[in-house]
């Protein structure tokens, strides 16, 4: 198919291959392997966030909480109850799905900022439960010696490389699922909701139901990421479920690019790397990192992938649009080609964002009397 020639897909595949090969370079470097593997666990949760935020446009601030539920599920079941990792993993993910679904039932009655803060409250309640429910979660003492996945005598997951590839494989599934969703009618459904719920409603989209599913799916990814995280790091404390985790995820997705296939992965890796890089500054690192975060958001608002993809898309669209209009429609094609040719050059200089304070047209579609 022609989509195979799409530079975005090529780029995504390149990133994945590169990542897949890192153990070759770093197999002996426990630290590097650890940072990358933990980063990939986060990336999985970020793919969840991508579904609800990137596709559906709902800012879910409970993702850290779901990550924590996954992590504690695996952590507690493999230690206090001595389950096998795999059983614990499956049960925790199902548990996260159920909790996510239930939270979604209420959460999705709210909209926009209310939804964001509502989910933030849910996330915080999850955190409080984990950090206060001593008898079950051991509160601040955390969960020690989380089991490694059982390799059934074939693979020894205690080896950093083996566990790397386990997480990597699951991450691949997430990336592919995201890709598949994006180009299917399911993805289109979610995207219509992001743009306008009213209009989506009008063309027969089951808005509530779809949002509900997206929310649950996002929670599931969070749980998967958390479950893997627990086994990778071996010890988990309440910080695994904290609101800081959520903001970390958000940072990853924003830097990478919301609603894109490769964005969450790239963002997770780059920001993780950036954070480690600045560790040498200790307490002062945020004097530098803070402004960097702000600058990234301002100057690359669509994230790295969005930024690169934007060029590709624009070019493709223009080419296709001109092709489509074709030569049979003389009047139109002349008009289009003049504006396409000269306008482009013009725009570069002017698109510096200093448009008049009022913003653009598309900003505030005057909402009609429709509900």
């Amino acid at each position, binding site marked *: 198919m022609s989509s195979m020639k799409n530079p975005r897909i090529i780029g995504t595949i390149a990133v994945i291959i590169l990542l897949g090969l890192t153990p070759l370079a770093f197999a002996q470097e426990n630290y590097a392997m650890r940072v990358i593997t933990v980063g990939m666990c986060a990336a999985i949760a970020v793919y969840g966030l991508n579904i609800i935020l990137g596709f559906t446009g709902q800012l879910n601030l409970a993702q850290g909480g779901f990550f924590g539920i996954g992590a504690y599920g695996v952590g507690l079941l493999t230690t206090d109850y001595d389950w096998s990792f795999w059983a614990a993993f499956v049960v925790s993910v199902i548990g996260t799905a159920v909790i996510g679904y239930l939270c979604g039932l209420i959460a999705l009655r709210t909209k926009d900022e209310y939804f964001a803060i509502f989910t933030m409250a849910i996330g915080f309640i999850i955190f409080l439960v984990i950090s206060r429910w001593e008898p079950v979660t051991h509160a601040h003492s955390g969960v020690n010696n989380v089991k490694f996945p059982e390799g059934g005598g074939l693979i020894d997951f205690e080896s950093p490389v083996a566990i790397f590839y386990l997480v990597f494989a699951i991450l691949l599934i997430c990336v592919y699922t995201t890709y598949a969703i994006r180009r299917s009618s399911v993805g289109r459904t979610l995207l219509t909701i992001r743009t306008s719920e009213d209009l989506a409603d009008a063309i027969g989209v089951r808005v509530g139901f779809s949002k509900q599913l997206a929310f649950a799916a996002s929670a599931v990814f969070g749980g998967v990421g958390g479950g893997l995280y627990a086994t990778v790091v071996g010890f988990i404390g309440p910080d695994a479920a904290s609101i800081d985790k959520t903001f970390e995820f958000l940072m990853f997705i924003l830097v990478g690019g919301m609603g894109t296939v490769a964005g969450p992965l790239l963002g997770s890796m780059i920001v993780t790397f950036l954070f480690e890089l600045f560790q040498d500054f200790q307490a002062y690192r945020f004097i530098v990192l803070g402004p960097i975060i702000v600058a990234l958001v301002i100057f690359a608002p669509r994230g790295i992938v969005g930024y690169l993809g934007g060029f590709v898309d624009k070019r493709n669209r223009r080419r296709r649009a001109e092709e489509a209009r074709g030569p049979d429609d003389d009047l139109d094609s002349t008009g289009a080609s003049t504006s396409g040719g000269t306008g482009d050059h013009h725009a570069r200089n002017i698109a510096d964002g200093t448009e008049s304070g*009022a913003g653009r047209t598309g900003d*505030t579609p005057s909402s009609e009397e429709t509900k």
Partner: protein
Amino acid sequence: MLTLDNVSTGYDATNVLHGVSIKANPGELTVVLGANGSGKTTLFRTVSGLMRVRAGSITYEGRQLHRARPNAVVKAGIAHCPEGRHLFGKMSVEKNLRLGSYPHRNRSRTEEVYAEVLDMFPILKEKAKQPAGSLSGGQQQMVAIGRALMSDPSLLILDEPSMGLAPIVVEQVLESVAQINRNGIGVLLSEQNAKASLAIAHRGYVLAEGRIVLADDASRLLDNPEVQAAYLGL
């Protein structure tokens, strides 16, 4: 007098207006005709500062306006009733209208114009306390026109004011526009009904693909065979 000299502008990568020059004399009613997408709205948005001028200049009564922000343009006396209305949906109709007088904030003048607006659109009296967003499409259009009037402008820009209005109200609105103009307020108008608008206008411009292709007195445009063919359905 409003003068646009060689104004070019556009959205993102594409230019929409290509060196447009027009003049609107004080107190006159100037109409801009043009097919869909010819750039009328863009032209108006440029005048009121909602869009940046990429080349050329705009002056009004001797003042440079091409770098002015919308709020400064209103203060200079140009009110714009935009396509898409841009009302404050959750505020009452009355508040919407009264906010229109923000540039001058002259109490007695506010009351005067407010009464005039309610006279022009009696239905708004009934709806005064209702959120503007809950009004019907046409009623909202009335609020938008009224709000523009409230700033007590010397030049009023109306972008398809009759959009979505019932035929009987369209007549009435055009009549009101003529009346407003007779009271000495300049009007810059784009209107679907070319014939009716030319009938009340002093001067007219024809815009095609972002360029002025015809500029003449309104009466002469009415007789112009090209215009008749393209816009008057004759």
